[in-house]
């Protein structure tokens, strides 16, 4: 099925990679059913593409690349259509963060210490759970852009292309997503 150094062995995919791919998906899309579906779709798509496998990357890397595309598809769907109302609402809320004239923090929203800026490993587990909830609360497009950038370290151009946002809008979204996340953490953590 393949040449060079890497070979595909579909009969061992489940044993060797299913849990990895599942965890990979779940950390990006916090929905177990959807994550299962994506893992299954990945294997089936991989079977069909197996002839095109050139053995240049490892089996796992190759499977992960297929999965990644599928996750981007999910992000893309989330960020179009229905998501727009969520963005509008979140944008409106952020109007209150800063003074409309000067751009200075309004008192009610100014940053307060989390008490863990210096990274206390003891609190990080609980903090992580809140972080995950706050991530899921972001409007679809914001979450997609934020996750692709900060989890996958995808190139900015790639994200802009895939999600159809301009460069200028990209920075606005990164800004808004971070403002919202931080505010959500402050509200739920302190």
């Amino acid at each position, binding site marked *: 099925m393949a040449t060079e150094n890497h070979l595909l062995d*579909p*009969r061992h*995919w*489940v*044993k060797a990679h*299913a*849990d*990895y791919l*599942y*965890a*990979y998906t*779940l*950390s*990006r899309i916090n929905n*177990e059913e959807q994550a*299962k579906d994506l*893992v*299954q779709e990945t*294997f*089936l798509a991989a*079977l*069909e593409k197996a002839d095109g496998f050139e053995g240049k990357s490892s089996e796992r890397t190759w499977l992960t690349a297929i999965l990644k595309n599928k996750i981007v598809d999910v992000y893309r769907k989330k960020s179009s259509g229905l998501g727009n109302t969520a963005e509008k609402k979140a944008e409106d809320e952020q109007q209150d*963060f*800063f*003074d409309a004239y*000067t*751009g*200075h*923090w309004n008192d009610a929203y*100014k*940053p*307060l*210490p*989390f008490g*863990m*800026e210096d*990274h206390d490993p003891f609190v*990080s587990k609980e*903090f*992580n759970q809140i*972080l*995950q909830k706050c*991530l899921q609360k972001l409007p679809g497009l914001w979450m997609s852009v*934020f*996750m692709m*950038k*900060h*989890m996958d370290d995808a190139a*900015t151009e790639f994200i802009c292309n895939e999600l159809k946002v301009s460069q200028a809008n990209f*920075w*606005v979204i*990164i*800004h808004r997503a*971070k*403002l919202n*996340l*931080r505010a959500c*953490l402050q509200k739920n953590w302190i």
Partner: protein
Amino acid sequence: MNHFEKILNNCKQATLLIGKKQIKNLSFREAITLRIHLAGCSMCKLYNKQSHVINTMVHQLFHDSMQSSAPKLDDDFKKELQERIEEGLNKN
């Protein structure tokens, strides 16, 4: 307000630049603007720190999920998956 005061007051702009800086290099002008602002604004200094913490935590969230304590698929689902794959293989 003179130009200097405008920079000092504009936390909205400063927080945008903080986010940008964590991803790419700022232009000279942006870098100076941010530096001036941060020198005079303890709130944005805190925001800057927290923004870094959030980035670190997001990375960690991902790496944690890749460790042994990571969520696993149940055996029934795996069996099903295995069958689907065998089916696919036999078709070819």
